């Protein structure tokens, strides 16, 4: 069984962690189909009433703290040499492939999270996965870090190659694999669909931006505001015939809508669609003139044009 733990709330800075919207974010994360949300003690203290301990992992500084916070499904603690109970995950940092051998020291631990291994894709990562599993036959969770821009790929490959647990964070906050990328990749490659409706990503994104005061890039995979904007003639024409021609998944799956943008690369299909959308009766014999004028205008402006600009432009040409 695939188990995904979200560590977003542990990756927030102190100020963000105390934001009034954190309880709502905590609740929404479960709707993405993940199994556990991990929180730390300060977050727990501030959202106590909202916490469902059955599917929440509490991060503690050292195992002696656990007795003050009973009832959680599991606890996680950076490995410090202390003995840990069975329900406690020992988190160990394995920075790169050369350090895998260090795992031999943790043979006796049955519940381990490996953090790091950023560079694994630069090597034979499948053999490395096998080595890791051979060294430790207990419950292993991988939390790849992203300094080599491959964390989401590694988390997915870990699952596809027989691993069962990964730890991720929304938008990869804190330098981890991105929750939304891993969830979507497993949905596409493994038909892992614990939650058919992923439109909750939009709410999570809005909350996350408010809490962290960070703007998600418009081309961020799965959640970026602009990923379903389409301008080029070939793509608009293809999508008009069948969305799946140029989209990996339906925009509605992640709560978004496709948007035809008029720009330098627009073709006749896009122009026709926009004219129809705004009920503009444009003479057929001046169509290529409109297309050429739009291209010139976009080059002059160095950008695509807005729908309002397009309407004004078309109406001006008619007059």
């Amino acid at each position, binding site marked *: 069984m695939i188990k995904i733990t979200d560590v977003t709330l542990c990756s927030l800075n102190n100020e963000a962690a105390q934001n009034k919207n954190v309880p709502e974010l905590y609740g929404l994360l479960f709707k993405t189909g993940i199994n556990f949300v991990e929180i730390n003690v300060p977050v727990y203290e501030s959202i106590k009433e909202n916490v469902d301990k059955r599917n929440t992992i509490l991060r503690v500084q050292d195992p002696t703290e656990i007795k003050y916070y009973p009832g959680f499904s599991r606890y996680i603690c950076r490995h410090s040499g202390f003995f840990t109970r069975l329900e406690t995950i020992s988190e160990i940092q394995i920075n790169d492939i050369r350090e895998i051998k260090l795992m031999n020291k943790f043979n006796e631990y049955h519940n381990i999270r490996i953090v790091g291994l950023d*560079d694994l894709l630069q090597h034979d990562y499948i053999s490395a996965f096998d080595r890791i599993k051979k060294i430790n036959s207990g419950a292993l969770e991988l939390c790849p870090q992203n300094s080599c821009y491959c964390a*989401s790929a590694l988390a997915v490959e870990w699952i596809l190659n027989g691993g069962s647990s990964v730890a991720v964070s929304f938008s990869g906050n804190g330098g981890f694999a991105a929750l939304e990328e891993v969830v979507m990749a497993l949905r596409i490659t493994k038909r892992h669909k614990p939650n058919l409706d992923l439109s909750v990503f939009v709410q999570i994104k809005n909350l996350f931006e408010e809490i962290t005061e960070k703007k998600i890039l418009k081309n961020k*995979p*799965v959640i970026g505001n602009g990923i379903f904007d389409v*301008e080029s003639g070939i793509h608009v*024409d*293809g999508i008009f*015939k*069948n969305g799946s021609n140029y989209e990996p998944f339906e925009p509605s799956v992640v709560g978004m809508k496709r948007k035809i943008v008029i720009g330098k690369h627009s073709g006749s299909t896009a122009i026709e669609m926009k004219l129809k959308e705004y009920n503009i009766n444009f003479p057929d014999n001046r169509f290529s003139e409109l297309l050429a004028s739009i*291209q010139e205008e976009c080059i002059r402006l160095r950008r695509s044009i807005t729908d309002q600009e397009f309407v004004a432009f078309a109406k001006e040409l008619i007059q």
Partner: protein
Amino acid sequence: MKEKKYLTDTTLRDGEQSPGFAFNIAEKARLAQLMDEAGIYQIEAGVPAMGKHEKDAICKIVSNKKNARISTWNRIIKEDILHSFDCCPDIIHISAPVSYVHIYSKLKKNKVWLQKSLQDCVSLALDKGYTVTVGMEDASRADITFIISIANIMKDMGVAGIRFADTVGVLTPFRTYQAISEIINNTGISVGIHAHNDLGMAVANSLEAAKAGADFIDTTLFGIGERAGNCDLNHFISVADKLFDISPGYAAAMSLKEYAGEILFK
């Protein structure tokens, strides 16, 4: 000794197709010049069939170039190839949709039509003395035996290489490795990878393709491109530099990013 790999930068084609970007001739020429100076092997300069402005920009890039090879992007339409002739590029790249969803649902044609149209366009460009590469559009959702069959025909015709395009960005690293290996093992043709970042795996997939034997890697500056973009040039260099002999090196790529950023985001 590290294995040699070559970058094909498509900022000026796939990158610019991303809504919000619209370069003028001077900007396209300057960006190409910066890439050339940085040591990019191949610059995909644009789509001549778009019209006079695009053709003027490509002609300027061709006349300014020092070391880079300049390529143009074409559909499997003869008129597109004729437009490319007007620009005198080093390489004519012809893109052929190879997945059934693209052949039957987008083009509303069939495999026989596709093969014949592609052969006609390739012959047209080869007969004129051009180096030709062929893009396998939507290859990640296509039947691998069909890709291999087309690749073998292309190789026999004298095509310099094929490009495996993950058009909708659904590949994972292992699947990328498998597909690229299978094509190389069954054809011996030179292969390039064109990755999209829809699942955040463009860098990982490009790296795996290179490990599997792909010689050419498509990138864009800042990873711009359709939807979630393409393989980010700087990100790729930062992870591939250790494994492969690749140009530009890390420092030159960072410098290119800095200067290009002033044009892309001014």
